[in-house]
């Protein structure tokens, strides 16, 4: 029998349904992998008992003939989702020890679908970062190594780096992620897995620790496109508790998967051909174009003229919202409280926030506070909102002549831990291809496409029209079938 931890979500679901193995066996196998992978630091909290309990229920449901869509599938939960009775930290010292008495809508949907939880996955602190190095609980390490024998520890991407690392290392078959400006897609690309950020509003934000409300969107990360479709079906849906939630039915994405792209047109944005970019990225992109043509699609060049303003726009809007969203962490009601001897209220705020937030979070709070302050608001925030509208219009115009857009996910393969921490701008550049779709609220996914000369995965990104997750998944599937990406990290941990 195949090793259970090598199975995909679909294989676990179907195998369990067919009686090939019990859900408890699956949960135990993954629990063992989790327990044996401390070196990756992918989990902040491990919850083997949760996975086992769900598995027992799945086995009982199978016996009773009451199986649910994801019965028997254990998953990882990014530690940005509030989980009832299980510590929820957003990888911050501020929320260290915080145990919510409520369950996020997305995680509740997954439990209702029969999933069990293997643990809470590490991430960049408050989802701010592209390498997982800003976590208060230490950085996650990618299971991948360069093939040059250097043995350098590599970044798993961020902010959903615990999710990407754990899936790539077979610690869980799938996990939740959140994407504000690439936090699902970039880590997926860095670790050779798939991940989709759906249209803004598809997944409820209720119970997800907020970073930037107008951009935050939950989505699944898994080993292949089908698993992403299955997971997303069980995460999405209208939620009256989130005023920005989409009141639309959730399509049956898995059933409609098709890699036949005849009649479809793929747009190639010329502005994404960056000066001085690693030629391997461009080569992978060209290979991707060929794959989609092979799948029957027509290919056209398109223009997204405001692309170069996307990153600066993002780094105004996201910090502005974050500076306000994170004001609630004040030491008054929950989480960390630093109350120096004889301190007053202002001193408590200062001490608590100085101690509770890491440097990257502070940097963004300061940027956000600055761009919203009197005298600067119009020059920064108002201007950025206008540019955001222009970027969204770029996409609308482009989609008049194509169905999906193909681009690289990230401008490079995974970098070494510590290589970019000293230079925030270099770090921010990692999201240059991911951010435009976030600003426009469009569905976008990353699928693994190739290995570079260092033996590290590279990802291709497909961006779709609003609400057209199906088009994105189908193009992703066409690439997946043709790229034949089967490489996996060799176990060293």
């Amino acid at each position, binding site marked *: 029998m195949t090793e259970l931890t090598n199975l995909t979500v679909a294989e676990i679901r179907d195998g369990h349904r067919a009686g090939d193995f019990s859900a408890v066996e699956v949960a135990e196998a993954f629990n063992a992998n989790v327990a044996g992978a401390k070196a990756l630091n992918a989990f902040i909290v491990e919850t083997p008992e949760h996975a086992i309990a769900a598995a027992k229920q799945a086995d009982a449901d199978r016996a009773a003939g009451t199986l649910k869509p994801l019965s028997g599938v254990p998953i990882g939960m990014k530690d940005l989702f509030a989980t009832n009775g299980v510590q929820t930290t957003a990888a911050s010292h501020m929320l260290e020890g915080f145990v919510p008495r409520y369950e996020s809508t997305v995680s509740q949907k997954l439990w209702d679908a029969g999933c069990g939880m293997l643990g809470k996955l590490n991430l960049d602190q408050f989802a701010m970062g592209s390498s997982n190095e800003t976590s208060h609980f230490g950085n996650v390490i990618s299971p991948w190594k360069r093939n040059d024998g250097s043995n350098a520890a590599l970044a798993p991407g961020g902010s959903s780096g615990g999710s990407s690392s754990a899936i790539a290392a077979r610690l869980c078959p799938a996990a939740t992620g959140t994407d504000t400006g690439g936090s699902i897609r970039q880590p997926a690309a860095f670790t050779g897995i798939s991940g989709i950020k759906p249209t803004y509003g598809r997944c409820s934000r*209720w119970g997800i*620790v*907020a970073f930037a*409300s107008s951009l935050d969107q939950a989505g699944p990360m898994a080993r292949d496109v089908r698993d992403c479709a299955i997971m997303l079906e069980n995460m999405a849906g209208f939620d009256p508790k989130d*005023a920005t939630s989409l009141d639309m039915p959730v399509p049956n994405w898995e059933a409609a998967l098709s890699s036949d792209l005849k009649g479809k047109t793929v747009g190639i944005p010329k502005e994404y051909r960056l000066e001085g970019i690693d030629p391997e990225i461009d080569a992978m992109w060209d290979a991707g174009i060929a794959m989609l043509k092979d799948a029957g699609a027509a290919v056209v060049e398109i223009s997204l003229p405001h692309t170069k303003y996307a990153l600066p726009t993002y780094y105004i809007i996201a910090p502005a919202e974050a*500076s*306000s969203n994170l*004001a*609630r962490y004040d030491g*008054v009601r929950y989480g960390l409280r630093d109350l120096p001897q004889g301190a007053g209220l202002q001193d408590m705020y200062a001490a608590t926030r100085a101690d509770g937030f890491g440097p990257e979070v502070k940097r963004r709070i300061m940027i956000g506070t600055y761009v919203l302050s009197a005298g600067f608001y119009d020059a920064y925030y108002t201007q950025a909102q206008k540019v955001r509208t222009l970027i969204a219009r770029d996409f609308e115009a482009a989609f008049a002549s194509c169905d999906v857009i193909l681009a690289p996910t990230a401008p490079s393969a995974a970098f070494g831990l510590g290589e970019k921490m000293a230079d925030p701008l270099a770090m921010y550049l990692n999201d240059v291809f991911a951010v435009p779709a976030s600003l426009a609220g469009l569905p976008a996914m990353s699928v693994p496409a190739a290995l570079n000369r260092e033996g590290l995965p590279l990802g291709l990104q497909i961006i779709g029209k609003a609400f057209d997750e199906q088009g994105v998944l189908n193009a992703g599937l066409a690439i997946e079938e043709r790229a034949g990406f089967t490489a996996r990290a060799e176990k060293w941990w």
Partner: protein
Amino acid sequence: MSNYTIKGETGEWEVVIGLEVHAQVTSNAKLFSGAATAFGAEPNTQVSLVDAAMPGMLPVPNRECIRQAVRTGMAIEAEINKWSRFDRKNYFYADLPQGYQISQLYHPLVGEGSLTIAADEKAGIPTDKVIGIERIHVEQDAGKLMHDQHPTMSYVDLNRSGVALMEIVSRPDMRSPAEAGAYVRKLRSILRYVGSCDGNMEEGSMRADVNVSVRKPGDEFGTRTETKNVNSVRFVMAVIEGEAKRQVGLIESGGTVVQETRLYDPDRNETRSMRSKEDAHDYRYFPDPDLLPLELDDAFLDECRASLPELPDAKRARYLSEGISAYNADVLTAEVEAARWFDALLEAGAKPVAAANWVTSELFGALNRMGRDISDSPVSPAQAAELLGLVADGTISGTIAKQVFEKMLETGDGAAAIVDREGLKQTSDTGAIEAEIAKVLAANADKVEQYKGGKEALFGFFVGQTMKAMQGKANPQVVNELLKKALG
């Protein structure tokens, strides 16, 4: 024009007043959460996860709060903005869990409107005056700090956190404490008619920020100060008077007024500086990204409009057209409960003028003596209509009606039943009346002489004596006629 001025050493100063009234919206649930809003509950028992700003919690607008604000806007004939938006006002305070208040700076729900304060000669308001209202926006209230629970710590009660407020911002159109007082009373009356706020200033469901500046008549506006959270009409007027005098004194002694926020201390009847413009917060307002713009459709607006009751001005005009005196119309329309009671009385068939006189004198007098509100009057409009009907059709006189009303209050019985039981029906039996008149005239022969000699004022005396002899039961009109005949 108001004739109110402050007499300074350098001449007369005009006072310019604008008010920002915060009115708590009457609703069972808070503006963005399902939590309850009852006043006086145990601390922190009406707090949802959203109100406590737990991680990942999101606001969802409460339709009823929006509806009430829209109805209020319609009641002041304001422009209703079909597209509005919520903004975050960012500042740190222990009673503000989110670290920001959700309010509406850039695109308020309600735009330009106005209300009219009635002329009041005695208060120095010679004619009706229209006061402009710039806007009404909807926002969250904050929680409450309690400093008396612990020797070194302050406690926080979040029951009020997230409760919906309407901020009603006037134009700087008022020129005297009396006008400001009349404005607040009128606004309160409208809110209570509409049912969008209970107007209870003592419980804090209505409070005002008072903006005051002074200038020489004809000059530009002076620098204003804002006194926060004033919670009675009397205090609003006191703040204006005190603050205007303080500003005049300051300017005339060579100083300048600083734009600042001040606090009123009712015990000492003075305001003191809270913070100046220099250390004012930078609130970093920006559109709340958790909320979509608020878009109202015509059906919603139509429903809001259709649900509005007759408002004080319209009601007053109707009463005047029915012959009710201006004074009575004012008294009857000031409070919605009284107006509703009076309307019920008219519906039960009472004649408007007599009913108005009776309610404002007899009923209000009785309620006052009993320390009761009209909403728990022991006599119902239907019972009162029965009593007034007996007067109108001549069954009893006005004097007897007073006795009957007293019995009604004592026993709760109906007027007709009391009149029957006590034999109070007035008589038009000319024989009986003539007999009594003859006795009265015989007993007062000297006065009859004087009357006949030209002292006609004595006629009333003869009427009184006859009525007394008839134990008040004689029909006064018949008495008059017969007396005139008897006196030749």
